[in-house]
């Protein structure tokens, strides 16, 4: 019996949205390096 979220659900929950946070963090770092680097 399934006792936790299905594997596909874990994937779609934990990949797309946190990935967008990381992308925005990388573009912030790139921007500040270009400005102050």
């Amino acid at each position, binding site marked *: *019996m*399934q*006792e*936790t*979220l*299905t594997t*596909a*659900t874990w994937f*779609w*929950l934990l990949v*797309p*949205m*946190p990935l*967008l*946070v990381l*992308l*925005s*963090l990388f*573009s*912030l770092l790139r*921007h*500040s390096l*270009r*400005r102050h680097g």
Partner: protein
Amino acid sequence: MTGSVEINFALLATLIVYLILMILVGLLAYRVTSNLSDYILGGRRLGAGTAALSAGASDMSGWLLLGLPGAVYAAGMNQLWIAVGLTIGAYLNWQFVAERLRRFTAAARDSITIPAYFENRFRDDTSALRVVSALVILVFFTFYTSAGLVAAGTLFEGTFGIDYELALAIGAAVILVYTLLGGFLAVSWTDFIQGILMFVALVLVPVITIMNLGGWTETSQMVAQINPGALDAFHDITLFGIISLMAWGLGYFGQPHVLARFMAIRSPGDIPLARFIGITWMVVALFGAMLTGFAGIAYFGESGLANPETVFILLIQALFNPWVAGCLIAAVLAAIMSTIDSQLLVSSSALSEDFYKRFFRPGASDTELVWIGRGTVLGIGVLATLLALNPDAAVLDLVSYAWAGFGAAFGPVIILSVFWRGMNRNGALAGIVTGALTVLIWERYEGGLFDMYEILPGFILATLAIFLFSRVGKGPTEDMKREFDEVQRAQREG
């Protein structure tokens, strides 16, 4: 009996403190607002953090703490797709539109409203673009604002047993006082506080609920016994349904109350930081809302709740001491108010900047224009409150309708206006009219393709109309091309 009176006193006291704080912020903003540009766009001096949280809190209405947890509680993790779609839309908006719109609105005769931007960007000497887009804003936002007020009134009636009309009157009065006094800065600064409150509540409530249930493993085992389908994002949903939910994310490019935050940021260089803060806030908030609904399945068991949308509030009342509960319920109110105030101010700008100043009193003094701005906030606020006094289900249905209307009518025009040099006034007008009409018609039919959320066909057809009609009539003038190239160059050089 004394127990419940005491609890109610603690809840009410914290809420009253919160409402007074909002009015104080309004007074503070009143002191630094001297002309219509201050009143409508804060004189373009928002910092990255304020712009980010203000965009997030304006965008996320009471739906984030009522509707989304309720939907996950009732249907399970197949509601995940709307969160994924919304986050992708918000990210693309911050990444591809924000910086360009900030530069283009400043370059196009310092436009401080979306209708003014359309008129100036496309050198429309007929005023048709400005009048049509200002009317779209006035109609959709009056109803959208009214739906928010209904949510606020219902929340208080349900939580405190206060009379609906009284709750509505108090809520509307507080919003009107700080918005009317302090304009855009009051709205943005209160949004910042409201955004923080929402963030704290959306982290605290699911974490405490899951701990109370014995941890994550126990929580999901309990859900598995109650409703095993809730564990699967693909349960009881078709690909068509997933696309329809994710299509909500297309709405962002055309929401005037979100775009205003891009236009109001101090400098284009502040946008990378604002984007990171805004997306992080949103992802944590959406996770918190979904987890609350999920944990609610385990907490309230099979007996279920009469109204799933109360799951967040009932968990607060069950698990927290009354003073903390008061702050957390204030967060629900904050979510509702932070959306209403921003929409109210954009509607007011459509009357004060786009009609009064543009057509009747172009030479009016700053003082006159700011007071006209305040008058229009009052007028639209009172109208929305009167509409909310006799709510029927139709008002709440209007939210998805208004979201789609703005998304389809303005979204493609905004995106192409900052990317396509060859776009002209005819293309823009055709895009707005096609987007609005498609949403209007699509929503009226049912069955087959018509069950798709109307924003998707509206967005696609509006985009096609822009490409088609930009070929009609005069192409962009030399002046427009030069302006476009200058902004593009500044954008590339960063």
